């Protein structure tokens, strides 16, 4: 390459350089000739090299073609083998089926029974303190549903074993430590007692078994009379101890959670309900106050009836005092003065009676008002959402019913209390109105009788 460049430079220089340099040109020509010779020999060498390489490649190609042919032959052989194997397998399965005969059905039954047992064990309280019960049954279920493999005798035995365990443990009361989930979602380990397959109790509370096998505290515990039995039941070591048992294995207790509490019930009554209940509270309070007052008055009056000197701490005493202060007036004036004194005493004795009676009469009316407003709410819900969803109507209906209950709950005790208080007040007023004059007359006769 350098030579060519030199030549080109020389040729370029030729036009500018003078003729005097011709001697150099000859040497240059020679040089170029020599260069050509050298180049041609180089080319020949290259050609030879290429030809050799080509031959080599051809050889390799031939070799690879032979390998391909070999492998194709192998593939065909294996395909043949596979086909043969498949036929063999079909034949063997047929043989197996023939040999299995009636056992085939038996395994079907086993599969079903194992599936049932699995669901029983999953939901059973016994699994709480017997962990890993499910693995044996799960293996059996898997194998029984898989046609390729037969469960072994040991694996089949897992099923009756677990069912026996279930039956035996259902009749036992067992206490053990167990991690439980509280209402707040935190887990803690407590002493848990399992009552057969019916329920779980611990630390004075009832627990429920969740589908995932976790033990959870009931969101809302049952009535106190059941709760109070838990501790004594847990601490009992022998003999009989009472405990509330849910025979539906948790369903009834879970319904209990949905049941509203008393306060929630009261809240369903709404404003009308609260007004009714406050009226009732006022009525009961007034009745109790007045009853206690009358009770005290009655005791003093009966003490007064036994004594001859008038004591001004009670109504009868005050009426009798009128006579003691007016011993010398004539009977008509005395009677007028007595009437006046009695009239002065009655308001205190009849105090609150009208309002209690009024409350007992108005409470059912308030209940009715709540019923009607509740029904209006219900019908509004029906207008908006239709009758398809009963939960939409539920709040109106519960308001209607709860207010009625509240009306009655207020009316019944106030009615009874009114009867009590009115009776007490009437008996004192009777004494004042009809017997005070008689008592005065007896006293007067004693004084004048001896004198007369």
């Amino acid at each position: 390459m350098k030579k060519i460049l030199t030549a080109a430079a020389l040729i370029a220089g030729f036009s500018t350089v003078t003729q005097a340099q011709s001697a150099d040109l000859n040497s240059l020509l020679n040089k170029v000739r020599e260069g050509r010779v050298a180049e041609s020999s180089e080319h020949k060498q290259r050609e030879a090299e290429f030809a050799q390489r080509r031959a080599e490649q051809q050889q390799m190609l031939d070799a690879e073609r032979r390998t391909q042919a070999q492998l194709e032959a192998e593939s065909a052989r294996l395909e043949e083998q596979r086909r043969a194997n498949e036929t063999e397998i079909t034949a063997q399965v047929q043989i197996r089926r023939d040999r299995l005969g009636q056992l085939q059905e038996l395994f079907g039954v086993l599969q079903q029974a194992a599936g049932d047992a699995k669901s029983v064990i999953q939901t059973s309280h016994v699994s709480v303190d017997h962990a890993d019960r499910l693995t044996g049954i799960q293996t059996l279920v898997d194998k029984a549903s898989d046609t390729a493999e037969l469960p072994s005798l040991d694996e089949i035995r897992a099923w009756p074993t677990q069912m026996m365990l279930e039956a035996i443990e259902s009749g036992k009361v067992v206490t053990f430590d167990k991690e439980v989930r509280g209402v707040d979602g935190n887990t803690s380990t407590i002493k848990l007692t399992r009552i057969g397959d019916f329920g779980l109790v611990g630390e004075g509370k009832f627990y429920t078994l969740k589908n995932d096998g976790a033990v959870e505290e009931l969101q809302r515990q049952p009535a106190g009379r059941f709760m109070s039995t838990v501790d004594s039941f847990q601490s009992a070591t022998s003999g009989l101890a009472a405990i509330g048992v849910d025979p539906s294995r948790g369903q009834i207790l879970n319904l209990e959670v949905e049941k509203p509490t008393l306060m929630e019930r009261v809240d369903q009554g709404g404003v009308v309900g609260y007004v009714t209940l406050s009226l009732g509270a006022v009525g009961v309070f007034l009745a109790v106050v007045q009853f206690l007052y009358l009770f005290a008055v009655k005791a003093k009056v009966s003490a007064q009836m036994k004594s001859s000197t008038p004591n001004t701490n009670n109504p009868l005493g005050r009426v009798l005092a009128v006579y003691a202060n007016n011993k010398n007036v004539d009977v008509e004036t005395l009677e007028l003065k007595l009437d006046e004194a009695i009239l002065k005493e009655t308001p205190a004795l009849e105090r609150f009676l009208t309002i209690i009676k009024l409350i007992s009469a108005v409470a059912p009316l308030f209940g009715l008002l709540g019923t009607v407003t509740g029904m209006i709410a219900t019908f509004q819900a029906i207008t908006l959402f239709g009758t398809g969803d009963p939960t939409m109507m539920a709040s109106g209906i519960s308001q209607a019913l709860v207010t009625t209950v509240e009306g009655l709950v207020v009316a019944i005790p106030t009615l009874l209390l009114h009867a009590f208080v009115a009776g007490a007040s009437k008996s004192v007023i009777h004494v004042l109105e009809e017997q005070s004059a008689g008592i005065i007359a007896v006293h007067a006769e004693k004084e004048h009788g001896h004198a007369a």
Partner: protein
Amino acid sequence: MLLNQAFGAIAQFMERGGDVLYMILAVTFIMWVLIIERMWYFTLEFKKQKQRVVDAWEQRHERKSWYAHKIRTAMISEINNNLTSGVSMIKTLVAVCPLVGLLGTVTGMIEVFDVMASQGSSNARAMAAGVSKATIPTMAGMVAALSGVFLSTYIERRAARESERLEDSLTMDH
């Protein structure tokens, strides 16, 4: 054996009717205790008291003065108080019985609607418990009220009649 069966039937009835039945039972029990007490008083106690009052009146040396008049009123009033004590309570209890029955009806209906809210309206069997709690107390309240209503009227009228007779027997004209 028969007694056991009877107790069983009663227990079953009480269970179906719910807790309100116990309230009705209590109200009815008190009502009947008061009624029987009145009957006892009318037939036995009252006659003795009446005799004592009549004797006391007859032994008076004069029966025409203002004093005598007032003493007579006091005597009658005392007996009258004895005669009518508890009568208003019986009447109130008679009036309360249907109210308690109604309370049972409404609480039963609440139970029905609770079931309806949680199980839908298709489960008639689940609602049956609430329906029986709604109907049985109503009936029981009515029966209890009816059992007392005739006797309470009778007692009231008898008290008024005895009081009048007493008044008649305390004569002022001799």
